[in-house]
């Protein structure tokens, strides 16, 4: 029976060639075409994209070298910025390819299996949950919206005017008075910006099926001086997409929210909503009009 290594490699034979592990990208009911599979390079170090059947579902995977992708090697590599970015982009390419023919449940980066059998079993064992998630994500996309405080020096300038009225003095007490007035003004400005961020969120939720928040990114990460107040994701029905985009335009256009700056990107594959534990972590609005 070991005369047919092409069919099922004997357990020992795996080590003789260069061993691989299976990187999983996404679950779908509608596998991408052969063309898409062939044309997509996900991880440059790996083989072509493949589709595994798992019950009524399909899993899009790629064989990748174990030497680079086993637990130890991959963790080391993901701690280096270059490899982290390459892996993230490769994963996204694979998920995007998987989504070409229909709805996907994207899997988190670095979902790896020792072989096809384990991968297919893992999907099959969650088939019902995955199927209902696919239903939920069908014909919907994710939009990322960030709200920053407006970059302005206004709070500092106005502080000298709106202080206690002793702002021009030169003594220590006058200094402290100016300092505390500045601090109050900053807090006021932040409170106003936060309230506007909440208003923006409320407006966008009206056009979304669900909303969730990521942790606001630090200034170190955004490279902006103004703090990020809201880092939100909205799950938007395709039928509501135009209305959602129009709401974004309105928010920016009419100067109703002068204390904040809003930026948006999308449509995204609904990564932020491909979760089974939503009740505990996310605010849901299934009852949105």
């Amino acid at each position: 029976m070991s005369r047919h290594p092409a069919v099922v490699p004997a357990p020992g034979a795996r080590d003789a060639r260069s061993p691989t592990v299976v990187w999983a990208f996404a679950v779908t009911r509608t596998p991408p075409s052969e063309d898409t599979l062939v044309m997509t390079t996900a991880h440059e170090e790996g083989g072509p994209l493949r589709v595994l059947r798992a019950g009524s579902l399909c899993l899009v995977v790629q064989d990748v070298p174990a030497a680079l992708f086993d637990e130890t090697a991959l963790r080391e590599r993901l701690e280096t910025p270059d490899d982290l970015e390459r892996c993230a982009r490769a994963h996204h390419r694979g998920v995007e390819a998987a989504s070409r023919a229909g709805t996907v449940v994207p899997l988190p980066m670095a979902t790896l299996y020792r072989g096809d059998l384990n991968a297919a079993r893992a999907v099959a064992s969650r088939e019902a949950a995955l199927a209902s998630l696919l239903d939920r994500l069908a014909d919907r996309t994710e939009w990322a919206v960030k709200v920053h405080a407006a970059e302005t020096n206004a709070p500092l300038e106005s502080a000298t005017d709106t202080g206690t009225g002793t702002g021009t003095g030169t003594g220590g007490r006058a200094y402290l008075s100016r300092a505390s007035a500045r601090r109050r003004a900053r807090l006021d400005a932040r409170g106003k910006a936060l309230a506007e961020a909440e208003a923006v969120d409320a407006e966008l939720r009206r056009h979304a099926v669900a909303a969730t928040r990521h942790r606001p990114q630090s200034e170190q990460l955004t490279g902006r001086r103004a703090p990020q107040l809201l880092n939100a994701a909205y799950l938007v029905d395709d039928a509501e997409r135009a209305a959602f985009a129009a709401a974004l335009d309105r928010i920016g256009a009419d100067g109703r929210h002068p204390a904040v700056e809003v930026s948006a990107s999308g449509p995204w594959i609904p990564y932020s909503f491909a979760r089974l534990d939503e009740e505990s972590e996310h605010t849901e609005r299934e009852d949105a009009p």
Partner: protein
Amino acid sequence: MTDVDRGCTDLGPQPYAPVTGNLADLLERILDKGIVIAGDIKIDLLDIELLTIRLRLFIASVDTARKAGIDWWETDPALSSRAARDALAEENARLRARLDALEDAAEETVEAVR
């Protein structure tokens, strides 16, 4: 001010944002907590924020960051790779044992199929 980076201009057949989008946004979406199905190989990554900040610093040159006094990731033991590795060592051992068991089960199934 609203700045919309649209992946496409309308409801065309290519619905998704280009792969070249903001990396921090991508990472916070794909390095995730809400595990839908568990893999055989579990990679415990450091905090997403830390990873992405590190990435940004790398791009901006770590030396520049150090000159600006940004070096907290080197001095905070909770965030150093070594600390992370120590904390994970025990779990790694457990997971390896589980992998072995899974592999054995898989091979048995292959045998049974023949």
